[in-house]
């Protein structure tokens, strides 16, 4: 079946994503070559957390988050690790709990507030996630996880860009070859600097925060974004 599919003509672009800043929707086309580069970059971030062959990585995400998450899924595969999938709805938190209780997870990627709150309400958070070496959570989940004594790393969608914290926990790295995140009076803004299908300069993200430049102790030269 895959042979027939790969023989078909490829579309001009890999997809069209969208992000929201307050009430405004901004769409961005996704080029083919940048999906390859994004997967390689995501792989470097996962490797810093020790993800390699034999690791189990649970990814909690919705399909509409594909522009940010599909490169991570490819990166898990490229590392020879295995990914599990769970939805982000609070009422589906049982699925995340099932993965965490049955498998020796090396990482949970993309944990959101709804899942964290649902598991916190049932008093399961610390027991379920206490033994997971790396939890990369969206900003809204951090207070809930901290309340259970957990110390997640940060993952964030900065407009069209993915930001991932390393084990130094000194801010979420953004791929400097593709994006330029800057501070401005109205909060963070982002520009495209890589050869991407989407071209934009100084797009406001509607997020307060700061940008730290210079080398990180993890070895990365990518700048780090601190939210809030």
């Amino acid at each position, binding site marked *: 079946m895959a042979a027939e599919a790969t023989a078909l003509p490829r579309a001009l672009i890999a997809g069209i994503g969208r992000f929201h800043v307050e009430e405004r929707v901004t769409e961005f086309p996704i080029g083919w070559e940048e999906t390859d580069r994004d997967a390689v970059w995501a792989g470097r971030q996962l490797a810093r957390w020790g993800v390699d062959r*034999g690791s189990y990585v649970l990814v909690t995400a919705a399909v509409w988050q594909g522009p940010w998450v599909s490169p991570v899924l490819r990166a898990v595969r490229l590392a020879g690790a295995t990914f599990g999938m769970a939805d982000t709805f609070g009422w589906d938190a049982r699925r995340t709990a099932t993965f965490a209780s049955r498998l020796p997870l090396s990482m949970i990627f993309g944990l959101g507030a709804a899942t964290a709150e649902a598991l916190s309400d049932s008093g399961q958070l610390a027991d379920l996630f206490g033994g997971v070496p790396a939890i990369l959570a969206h900003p809204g989940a951090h207070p809930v996880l901290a309340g259970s004594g957990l110390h997640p790393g940060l993952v964030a969608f900065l407009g069209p860009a993915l930001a991932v914290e390393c084990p130094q926990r000194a801010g979420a790295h953004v791929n400097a070859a593709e994006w330029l995140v800057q501070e401005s009076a109205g909060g963070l803004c982002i520009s495209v600097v890589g050869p991407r299908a989407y071209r934009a300069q100084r797009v406001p993200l509607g997020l307060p925060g700061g940008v730290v430049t210079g080398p990180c102790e993890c070895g990365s030269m990518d700048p780090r974004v601190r939210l809030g």
Partner: protein
Amino acid sequence: MPGDRYFQPEIETMPRAGLTKLQTERILELVPYAYERSPFYREMWDAAGVRPADIRNLDDFTQRIPTITRDDIRAFRARTGDPFGGLLCVEPAELTSITSSSGTTNDPEFFPEMWDAQPPLPLASARDLWELGLRPGDRVLTPAGSFRGFFDGLYQMLGLIPLYVDTWMGNWAEVLDAIREHRPAYVQLLGPIIIELERLAARHDLRELFSCFKGASFAGQPLAPRQARMVREQWGLELFVYTSAGDTGTAWECREHDGYHLWEDMVFAEHLATDGQHLVPGGDVGELVATSLDDDAAPLIRYRSEDLVRMTKGPCGCGRTHSRMWVAGRKGDETVVRGRPVVIGDVWAAVESIPETADGLFQIIRRGREVDELRIRVGYEPPGDVAGLAGRLANAIEERVGVLPEILLETVEEILARSSSVAKFPRVVAR
């Protein structure tokens, strides 16, 4: 190469003798493969006194290899601590991904997967999406749920352009804007989304908006007849309903809309009496028992799906030769009230006959299959005379099923907030 109608013409229209030969060859490979690698099958088959060498043809397979249930796998997992229930036939490090069942009634069960190009479940729908009419260059909306895998890679492989829009319920005002802007050819719908669209129809011309679609898929629960008419006749949307192929994949309607096609190069499907091992005639209701033919990671072999279906091996009007099935319900969904059986379909017909509850949103609440009282939670559209509505509903249901139920009314929004699965709305819930 894909043709005008068929994605894989030779396989999709393969004569019955060819399908049987293909299935026989695959099963004769599968049996020793699973016995040597899977502790679950080795234990089950040893206990049944059967060895791979005993299986020389399909008759041996269906008569000697025992059927299995989800409870058998759960019991093995509980006893051994094996997260995969003993089904795994490869080293865990060889797995590419792990998805899971909907988890509508129990904890989700794992589906370990091993693949190169695309995950198995999305890839298996390539023929069905081709039949729906999708072609390279078409734009498609991404589905709401990810628990059975991301579908964007398959869409890309088919030359389609995924529109990454949140299509879960509550966001369809934005989805309609995206449809207006991009004129996509395909979307996946779920029951709660159709209810939301019904609300939005007052402010949007859905027929015009949906005129760009070649089709929409629908899955997860039976579609209420009133909703089906509304979607097809008022909104002009051709729905392609699909269902589970006994947890081995999916089975879709073709453009003839005359049953769900089981791809028999991927699944060996049997149609057995619910209380035994014997085949039932195709026109009668039996339980779908499935064997996955394309899964080297953790194949299900003679798996009792609990799906009650009718089946035929007769060719379809579309020219495809693979079996088709029609779903009659789920084993275990029947409730026996003081000795009188009550089936979902009869309750449904009564609920949707009342204007305020025409969405057909209801759940039977019970402690077990046999109860003394029939309690039904029903979603209604406010405002309304709740006391009077409960009485009318109770009478309508009694007329259909012969039992006067206790009615618990909630608004449609309240009842949808109880969703416990992105894929299925449970019709029977524990008290």
